[in-house]
């Protein structure tokens, strides 16, 4: 946009200016919180279950004479986050009391499918969390049933993390979202924020701290995930920039337009640069928990801003009628110049 200068003000294309950089306004912060908590909860459950399978962390504490395993609570609390996130979707509805209707059309609607995926994950996840933490002997009997339940729940956790991206991808008229890279980006972000949520919860109190090896594996994995997330974000934005005119507008809006503070400050600085720098300082200072804490909180904020940024920069595909308007406007201005 912009070309010649008249009276010191920048000349802007009036029609394009209306259409340009005008993102959707229907889904805002509440949906971003929902996507973020659902993604982070599901990601942390995936990481936590893998940790549980391969490292078997355990820290049994006695309360009222009963032995509760708090290490399990610290790594498997993802479903609680998803359960907190789901009401945000209800909060965004016009008529909240009808929220149960949202599962009536799973044949074609991703909102309905998501409702079912999240519900199943929350129920199964909470049952398994209770099973791992509660001190009842009969719950801990090794059986194929529990193993299958864990596999099913981890599959639904993956589905939940992917769904947060697929929900947006299903909106075909917004080219910024209509790509398979978006579910991938949200999945990687879910895993990185999820692993950081586990690190924070285990560091939260020294009582719950895992053994050093587990924490080291978790930190290493989390750093790799952050790097992968950065690469996926770069590929996503560069591919979208070339995809279509409106996708290009969306990327421009995010990188150089109205949302640039959100992108450079919220996503790049808080989501990638600060956590990496702080974690490096922490590793130099022999795992100083203060730096890890700061890195964790900042990274989690970055994860939220990533969802918010992608949501708030979604510009609709141009309809043929608007293109016609543009051509008409061009013809009119050309005629005016000729006269």
């Amino acid at each position, binding site marked *: 946009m912009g070309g010649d200068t008249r009276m010191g003000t920048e000349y802007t294309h009036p029609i394009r200016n209306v259409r340009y950089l005008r993102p959707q306004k229907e*889904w805002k912060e509440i949906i971003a919180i929902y996507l973020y908590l659902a993604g982070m909860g599901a990601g942390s459950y995936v990481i936590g279950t893998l940790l549980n399978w391969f490292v078997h962390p355990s820290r049994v504490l006695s309360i009222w004479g009963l032995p509760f395993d708090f290490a399990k609570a610290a790594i498997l609390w993802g479903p609680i986050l998803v359960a907190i996130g789901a009401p945000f979707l209800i909060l965004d509805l*016009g008529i909240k009391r009808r929220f149960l209707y*949202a599962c009536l059309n799973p044949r074609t*609607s991703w909102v309905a499918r998501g409702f079912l995926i999240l519900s199943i994950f929350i129920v199964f996840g909470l049952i398994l969390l209770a099973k791992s933490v509660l001190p009842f002997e009969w719950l801990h009997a090794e059986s194929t049933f529990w193993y299958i339940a864990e596999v099913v729940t981890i599959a639904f956790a993956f589905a939940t993390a992917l769904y947060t991206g697929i929900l947006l991808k299903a909106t075909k008229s917004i080219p910024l979202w209509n790509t398979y890279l978006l579910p991938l980006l949200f999945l990687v972000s879910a895993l990185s924020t999820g692993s950081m949520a586990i690190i924070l919860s285990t560091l939260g109190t020294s009582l719950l701290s895992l053994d050093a090896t587990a924490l080291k594996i978790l930190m290493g994995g989390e750093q790799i995930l952050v790097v992968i997330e950065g690469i996926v974000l770069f590929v996503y934005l560069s591919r979208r920039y070339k995809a279509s005119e409106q996708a290009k507008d969306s990327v421009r809006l995010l990188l150089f337009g109205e949302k640039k503070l959100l992108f450079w400050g919220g996503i790049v600085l808080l989501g990638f640069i600060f956590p990496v720098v702080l974690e490096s300082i922490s590793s130099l200072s022999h795992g100083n928990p203060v730096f890890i804490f700061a890195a964790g909180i900042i990274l989690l904020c970055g994860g939220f801003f990533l969802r918010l940024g992608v949501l708030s920069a979604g510009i609709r595909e141009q309809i043929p009628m608007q293109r016609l308007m543009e051509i008409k406007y061009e013809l009119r201005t050309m005629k005016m110049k000729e006269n």
Partner: protein
Amino acid sequence: MEQKVLVVDQQKCTGCRLCELVCSVHHTGSSNPSRARIKVVKWEHVGIYLPMICNHCEKAYCVEVCPTKACHREADNNNRVVIDKNLCIGCRTCIVACPFGHPFFDVQERVTVKCDFCDGDPKCVTFCDPKAVTYVDADMIQVAKKREAANKFIDSIKQLR
């Protein structure tokens, strides 16, 4: 059954927005254009006005994404796409999905609303003086366009003579 559709002739639209007013009166009982099912997009400085209507698309995204089946097609009623107010939860997914930005969120009723052809007698058509919005048989749209093109061709031949 013959299918009828709303057709917009943008060149005839004067931007008076009477269609918005009568639409809101008919559907809501209040003269509040922000609650209308038709929206006139205006570019005043270049004198271009574009009434935006629902196209009742063959492959309607709003129907596809609706989680409650509130937004559905009535095949036996002019093949129109309508929203059942009693099923709508106001999630606004249809608004995000529609490439024409058509379904509108009614802030008073807290549900999404859209054009339903006023059950066969569209008020926007009845009250549009310049006839910028017409309600015609779907088959006749092409005929009208062809007639218009032929008239332009005749005019240009006349000018050459």
